[in-house]
């Protein structure tokens, strides 16, 4: 997760990079990420995206780095963004 202390002061985070397995830690505080504008998710799997993510109302840009050849169900939780980046990489991370 970057920044590593994002969960300590989520309301001050404007840009967040996580891996898919970080959802468990992030989701309980998702409503507190009120200033989050850019979200990058590495290692995206094919389990459905949580509906709670729609609470990220300031989000402008989402980047999903996929391991598989399809998107996880529930992508519409990010439907308010202005920018969407989708990449399939060999390890689900930025090269």
């Amino acid at each position, binding site marked *: 997760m970057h920044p590593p202390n994002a969960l300590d002061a989520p309301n001050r985070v404007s840009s967040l990079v996580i891996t898919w397995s970080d959802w468990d830690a992030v989701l309980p505080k998702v409503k507190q990420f009120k200033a989050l504008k850019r979200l990058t998710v590495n290692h995206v799997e094919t389990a459905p995206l949580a509906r709670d993510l729609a609470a990220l109302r300031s989000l402008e840009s989402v980047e999903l780095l996929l391991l598989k050849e399809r998107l996880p169900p529930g*992508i*519409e939780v990010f439907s308010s963004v202005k920018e*969407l980046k989708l990449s399939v990489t060999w390890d689900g991370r930025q090269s």
Partner: protein
Amino acid sequence: MGWPAKLKALPKELAAFRRLERLRIENAGFDPFPTVIYDLATLRELHVVNGRIGEFPIGISRMKRLRRISWSQIEMRSLPSDLGKLPALQAFEADRGLLRTFPVEKGDYRALEQLTLKDCQLSTLPDEVGDLPRLRSLNVSGNPLLTEIPPGLARAQKLESLEAERCQLRRIPDELFSLRALEKIDLTDNTFATDEYKALKRLAKAHTIDVFLPRTIERKPPLPAAIADAPLAKSIRKDLDRLGVIASKSEKPPREVEIADALWPVPSALGELLSRSRSGREIQAPFAGSDMSRFSFSYFSSDLKEYECIRHHPYVVIANTPTYFYLLVSLDEKEPADPTLYILDSDESTAHEARRFDRLSAWLKKARPVKTPVRAPHRG
């Protein structure tokens, strides 16, 4: 670890992105292209990087706000048939792809300002590209099959920049130089005939346009047949075989070499010697009197450019020593089957003087193969 999978499809839920302005997809494997993208009415920029796109269903022209499209490293042989009908498209970029043409119909691309078709497989550009009313920048660099800029481009009154590096252009329409808005023409790394090159140079001087011309390449006249076709002497071939100085099966003897901005015809005997010299084999042979020295047979085009010691035939480098000397060979018109050897001291290379010292046949007879590697000579 394997090659990444390709994104094969997009879900219909993407249509719910009613504010989306920029979409970037990396490693796409679409066939057909997902039409849900056509429903993104607010999209302004679409970037697809790496992958493959098969068929394009009609409908992309529904994207009324789309201003910029880029396809980079996409295996895609044709464009959407209604691409030119996109009303707001200002920039279209395809690079490192397989596009062979860029069709333009009357009234297409009314808003297009920047057209980049770089490092593709274009063999022609339609004359109608000159009818794009807002075209300011055209980049067709890196299309090695492209031989012509269409005369119609001279109708593109707003054209400011034409980039056409690394093509095979034979000529440029003179009328282009009269375009009032044109500021830059880049023709680097094309090969024009001498007359065309001179004409371009004159036009460039006469206009206030930055013209980047290729280097001039003069082609020297052909050699008399008796010299051009004389084979290498049998005894030389035999000795080269004995020393392991042999050409690879894929190596064809060069018929021309570039030295000092000129293309010189290469006689058959020298051509064979050059193709064999790329073997890199080392030999021990007499050098400058009774000394024995090691030579590495090698030939690089940079060596050829370095030595401008040319009068009536090119000297060409066939071997290097580890001690700052180069072995050059030149054809003797009286004995074309048996070239003459010269030695060039690399420290004195600016003087362009090479010392004649032996016939190739005589020198090779005294040579022996060397097994241990020889170090490349110092340059500079």
